[in-house]
Structures are given as C-alpha cells and as structure tokens.
C-alpha cells in the first residue's frame, strides 16, 4: 500500500524525493490536490503533498515582491495582498466549480505549476510572467534556487519562468518570489449588446489596438449564461483611476459607435462579472468535456464557426478571442477534429480542462508535440528527473 507524504519543510521534501529516486518509485506530486481532475492521472503508489510547506517568507509591499512557500493557499496569498491594496495581476482562476472540488482549495504552487491566468492575462501577462525566482527540489533530490527577488535579472537561464507550466514533472517547488502590483482604484466594463461573434471579434481587436488600455475583453453568445440571456454580450474592461477611466470610456464609445447598443457595468458588479468568467462559473454543474483553446485572437471566432458546423457546443471567448472555452455535447472524443480546426486557422493549442477519467486516459489532454519538440522535452525531463519519479505521465506519456 502506498504512502502519502506531507512534508512541512523543504528538507523533509528533499528527503522524500531522494528516497523515491533511490527506490525508483514514482510520486504523484500535488499541492492540495485541487487540480487532480485536470490533466492525465498519475500511476503511482505514493503521493507527495506540498501544502504543508506554507507561509509567507518575505513581503515588502513597496518592493512589489512577495516571497512565499509553494504550498501556501492561494486564498491566503490573495487576502494578504488585498490588505496592502495589492494583487496578483494575472488573477488566477478558482477552478473548483468546473472541476467539482471544494472552493478556494488551491495553492500558489499549483497555480504556477499550471501557469493559470485569468481574463487580465490579456494586458498584464500570464502567471509565469510574474515569477522572479524559485527554490525547488529536482527529481534527483537536489535542492536548488533560480532567479531572485528582483524584476530585472538575466543571471543564468530563466529556470523560474521555465519551470512554470511543467506540472511538477521536472522539480517540486518549495518557494516562489512573485511580482505583485497595486490594485486598480476603480474598474468598469463597457458592454456591447447583440454583436455576432465576427463583429465581436473585430470590436475587441479594435479596442485592443486603441489607446483605451482595455485589460480584459470577452464575448458571450446569446443564451450562454444569465448575463447574455437576451442578447450576445461583448465585454471590455477598463481599470485605473476614475479620471482616466472616464476618458478611455469615451474613447471606446467613439471607436465603437457603429454598435449603438451600449451599456456599462460598474464597480462591484464589474468585478463579479469578471470573477465569474475567470472561474468559468457558466460551465459549472456539468460533466461535459470542456476544452481550453489558445489561438491567435482573430482566429477565435473562425474556430468557433467551424466547430459549430460539426458539433453541438457551448462556448465563450476571452482574451479578445485568443482564448476559447468550448463545452462539447456528446461522447466524442473530439480531440482530433478540434485540433485540426485550430491548425487550419492559424495554429495554437487545445487542452482538455474537464473530462471523465476514461476520456482523459484515451485522448491527448495536452496538445501533441512535433517529434523534434517532444524529443527536446523528453531530454529536459531526463536531465531533471532521470528516473521519472515526479508526476510521470501527468502531461504526456514519457514525461
């Protein structure tokens, strides 16, 4: 029978990994396990749980840098930052509603291991863009650090960003230094009603290409959720100081005046709207396969149009069209045609976010890699985890 290790220090974690490496026995590495229903399942007798390594190491608000242990809960991090009127600019999602797990269970390590970013990623950058440094234990059981606590740093390879989105398959992080930013004084959302997805795509593109400094741009088709019950809605979020928001709103009104049906969502309602989209609330309460598609922004609506010709789907566009969430009706699997449509429309990638254990075992959950790239990824894995003990198969077979 396998064991569940729950270390409380980096040294304890190192001892577990060293032991597993010596025994050649795989470990399922989790923070708190809130994303276990996402990705491929790991076949292992033992589980290494990191959320015992928790707490703030250093936080100087004026430096805009937070150094925190990897197992610290995301909620704790967000609460602390909020007390100092700061935030994680990439606004990571709480995926509990779509993954069917308890709310607010995730750790900061889990967020960075999956490079999880919300709607503001469009302007502020992804989770990985905010990582300045890390400490980790490699699959060889070696404790190491990379990067530092400062924004400008080119001393050696950028392992701290490079290890984000590696799903714990190269090393197990024990702490991170993260760039944080002040919260905006105000936010509001400029809304266009009744646009076709094609119109929405060009409206979002025009808004993003203007100096209105839109920080999030999404489009929800008619009937998709309570907010879009009557008409499709296109949402453009503005954040900043009031005088600046007023000015930029006028700018949007004038650029997009050919769409006369305009509305405004202000303050708390705006925050809630984006919070719900970030957490994928409209897709909650279902177990149908949910795919995350990353494409060039203007290709989003084309991909949707192609998909609608072939499948019954529910969808929404975020990141000005560059992020498409698609819920598929029916059994599938849909991975092959779905990815072909992406390739035919400028390229990108598709990841299965929600799917049954059987589905996740039978399709490529993550975008299949070209042979040369897969070879490189495998060599990287072999360098850091030669015995394949850290989350083997979590992303791809052989990694």
């Amino acid at each position: 029978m396998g064991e569940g290790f729950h270390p409380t220090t980096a040294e304890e974690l190192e001892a577990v990994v060293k032991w597993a490496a010596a025994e050649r026995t795989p470990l399922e590495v989790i923070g708190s396990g809130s994303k276990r229903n996402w990705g491929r399942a790991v076949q292992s007798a033992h589980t290494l749980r990191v959320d015992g390594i928790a707490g703030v190491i250093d936080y100087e608000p004026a430096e805009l840098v937070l150094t925190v242990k990897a197992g610290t809960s995301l909620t704790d991090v967000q609460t602390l930052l909020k007390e100092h009127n700061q935030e994680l600019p990439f606004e990571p999602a709480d995926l509990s509603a779509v993954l069917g797990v308890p709310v607010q269970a995730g750790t900061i390590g889990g967020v960075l291991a999956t490079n999880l970013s919300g709607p503001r990623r469009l302007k502020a950058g992804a989770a990985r863009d905010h990582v300045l440094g890390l400490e980790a234990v490699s699959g060889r059981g070696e404790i190491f650090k990379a990067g530092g606590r400062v924004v400008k740093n080119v001393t050696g390879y950028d392992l701290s960003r490079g290890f984000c989105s590696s799903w714990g398959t190269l090393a197990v992080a024990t702490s991170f230094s993260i760039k944080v930013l002040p919260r905006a004084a105000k936010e509001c959302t400029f809304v266009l009603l009744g646009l076709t997805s094609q119109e929405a795509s060009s409206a979002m593109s025009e808004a993003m290409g203007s100096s209105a400094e839109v920080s999030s741009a999404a489009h929800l088709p008619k009937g998709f959720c309570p907010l879009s019950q009557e008409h499709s809605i296109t949402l453009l979020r503005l954040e900043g100081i009031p005088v600046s928001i007023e000015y930029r709103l006028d700018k949007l009104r004038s650029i997009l005046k050919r769409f006369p049906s305009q509305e405004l969502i202000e303050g708390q309602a705006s925050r809630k709207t984006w919070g719900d989209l970030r957490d994928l609330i409209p897709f909650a309460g279902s177990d149908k396969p949910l795919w995350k598609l990353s494409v060039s922004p203007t290709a989003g609506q084309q991909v949707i149009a192609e998909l609608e010709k072939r499948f019954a789907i529910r969808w929404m566009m975020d990141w000005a069209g560059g992020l498409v969430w698609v819920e598929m009706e029916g059994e599938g699997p849909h991975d092959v045609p779905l990815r072909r449509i992406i390739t035919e429309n400028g390229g990108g990638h598709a990841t299965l976010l929600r799917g049954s254990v059987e589905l996740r075992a039978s399709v490529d959950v993550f975008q299949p890699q070209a042979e040369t790239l897969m070879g490189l990824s495998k060599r990287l894995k072999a360098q850091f985890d030669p015995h394949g003990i850290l989350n083997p198969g979590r992303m791809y077979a052989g990694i």
Partner: protein
Amino acid sequence: MAAIAMPKPSQETLRKRSKIVADLQKIVRGEGVICDEIEMRPYETDALTAYRQLPLVVVLPETVDQVSRVLKYCYDNDVKVVPRGAGTSLSGGALPLEDGVLLSMMKFNRILEIDLENRAVVTQPGVTNLGITTAVQQDGFYYAPDPSSQIACSIGGNIAENSGGVHSLKYGLTTNNLLGLEIVLITGEVIRLGGKHLDSEAYDLLALLTGSEGLLAIVTEVTVRVLQKPETARAALIGFPSSEEAGKCVAEIIGAGIIPGGMELMDKLAIDAAEDFVHAGYPLDVDALMIVELDGPEAEVDDLLKRVSAIAEKNGSSYLHVSQSEEERNTFWAGRKAAFPAVGRISPDYLCMDGTIPRAALPQVLQEMQELSEKHGLRVANVFHAGDGNLHPLILYDANIPGELAAAEAFGADILRLCVKVGGVLTGEHGVGIEKRDLMPEMYSEDDLKQQQRVKCAFDEKQLLNPGKMFPVLHRCAELGFMHVHQGQLPFPDIPRF
C-alpha cells in the same frame, strides 16, 4: 589584458581549418563565408571591447536550411559555434573562439509579417529592435522593450540577452513581450515554439531560451507582441540634495501604487558629465537627479504628475521641472541616454557594470559603493533604472596606466558582490557572457549551477554552442548525469503522512 580564460582551442579543429572552410563554402556559397583575416577583423569583438579574438571562420547564412546544415556540420565534426547578432553585447556574449565558427545572423534582416489585428509582428532575428517599432509606428504601435542600443541591436540578440530598457518597469522585458520562436538546435533540427496565440504549450521553452545567451539554440524567426503607443508621455526632472532622499522617493512612488513608464536616477558625477555633453538643462546644484516619466491618457498623466510631485516634495526634493513639450521631454532623455558616452568624455576609459538590487537597499549600496571607490582609488559614476533597482555604475579608469584595468575589474566585482549581498543579482540586463562568468558562484551554489547546466545538456549535449560563456566551470554532461543516491534508504521517519 584578458584575465578571463577561454576554453583551450581544439588543435584538431585548427589543423583542419582549410577543410572546414571549404566544407562550409559548399553550404553557404559566395560571400557568406569569410576567412580572410582582414575581413574577419570586424567580428573579433563585441561591445566588451577589452576582449578580442579572431574566429576560425565567419559564416553568414541567409536561409533556415543553411543554418540547419551549418549547425549539423559542426555537430557532426565537433566544431564549436559562436552565434552573433549585431555585436552590441556588453558582456562579451559574442566574443569569438579561435577554434569556433562565428555564425552571424545579420542577413536574416526582413520583417516577415505585420499583423496589427492580432498585435503581432513576425520577424527575422537580424532586424533591429528599433526596426520593429519603425515598421508599425505609422499605425500608432511600438515594440515596448527599448535597450539603449536599440538603433543597432538585433531582436535575435534581444532574445539571447532578455533585454530590458528604461520602460521595462511598466512594460516588461523581452521575455514578457515574446510570443513565438523558430529555433535550430545544434543537431540541425528546426523547432517552432508558440505563435500569435498566448502561452506556448507544454514546457515553457520560450522562457528558457530568452536570456540563454546563445548557448541553447540559434533563433531564426521571432514573433513579438506590439502595443499601441500611449497618447501622452510627460517627464519630470526632480533634483535631491542627496541620493538617500532620491532613493526614498523612488520607494514611496512605487509604494503609492504608481508605476511610471520610466524612472531613472543619476548621481552628481553622471549629472555633470551629461549636462556638459548634451546641455539637457539639468540642475547642477543637486546630488541626485531623477527622471520620472508618466504615460497614458492626458488626464491620468496630469493627475499622477501631481502625486509624484507631492511625494518628491515630501522627500526633500530641491528642484522640480515638468516637461512642457515633447521636445523638452526628449531633451530630458537625451541627457540620460548619452550618460555613458558623456562619462566617456571625462575619463579615458570606463567599465559599465550592471547589477540589480531590491529598491530599499539603494541608499546602503550607494554608501558602500563610495567606500569601495575610495578603497580601489577609482571614481564611479552612477546611472540607474531606479524603478526596477537596476544599477549601472560606471567605473572610470585609464587603460594606459598599468594595473588600472585590473583594478577597475576588481572594483566591478566588488560592486556585484555587494549587489548579491543585499539580495540582488549579478546582472540585470547585460548578460553574464564572459564578463560575469567567474562571479556566478557568488550568487549560485554548485547545485544551483548544475541545474542550469542540465538545461544546456538537454539542448546541446556536446556543448558546442558558445562554450566559455555563462558557466565558470564546464562539466561534461555525462559527468552531471551521475546521481548520488543511497539505495534503500528510508524516508525521514518523522515526516508527516496522510
């Protein structure tokens, strides 16, 4: 000269030189292979001019296929390769090797696609940083990272160094503005990463390649994000009676939640030199001068300038002047951007350092740097990107005085050690190259450095790409693969289980 040792040249490669040249001429025909000593001269150094070395041969490929075949040839024949962009590296990243092919990417000089609907530009790596902005500026767009060498430096070189600039506090470094790459491995394999979409799939190799100083792969195509230019930008010149007050003001501006487009500081020596050179209208009765630039909609800029002025006043500023026109704003920056050559006028030679520190440590670092200046008997002028704590101390020396270069290098090393001591890093934006290579152990333990080299081994097991740069000791990859494990050892009995 040359206190920094480079790897011993392979006698076999040197012996086979004429055959290697002939073989490369079969891959890149015509003028793309340069082997004449006089014609190779321009390639013997980069912007770290204290170090010079003629390469084995210079190759200027024009197609991805040629790059791939040249690299495969070198891989098959164990020949080292030093990649080169525009040659503006300040850390010796493009310093040739006697037994290495110098691979210049400057014939890859075309912009391939401008896609403003997706706010992306696809370009070849030899296009200059400013060339990208020039190509999109008529539509109001620009490419945000702006290293001061932007007129000359190539975007491929920017990838290699993860270049920043005065606006990186607000708009990020190269790594934050990069969407996709096409690379060629030393084996000749061509790999595409990312594209116009956000977040490349699987392992984040874009992150590992950006700032990898030409040690991992050759970049043959780049996709970057471009942004709409802010409507208004205004700068304020703020003078302080001491650097300490200036440092506190920087921290307080950031602490108030204001992220300026740029925030620069200069000390007395740098102010005087720049003013004398450019006549930017800098006050000469202050000890520290700050340039703060705020950008965005006009109303926002006006509001933030008021807040910044109030913070400056509270922190004892003795001079404040806000630019009243675009021309005046450019003049403010002209002084700052000319600070290096301006210092060059008051000293026969200078060494430009590049450390980063936490902002709060600024007063302490400036104080200790003065003490070091006295200890080494050399003057130092300070110019820095205060917003992100990136220091550029300029150490003044005279290479004609025996021992002064060595003294300047020792002083520089002490400054970088000081940066690490206060929680900072060896290099903020100029790269490790050869210049800071031997200081890496000041910041990283042996295990830390091993992990870095493991990335190298995954990309370039034979270590043929740009050897002698970045790593103080080159371990063979097979040697790094050895694992110290204690078979059968049980895990800590007292680790909590669940």
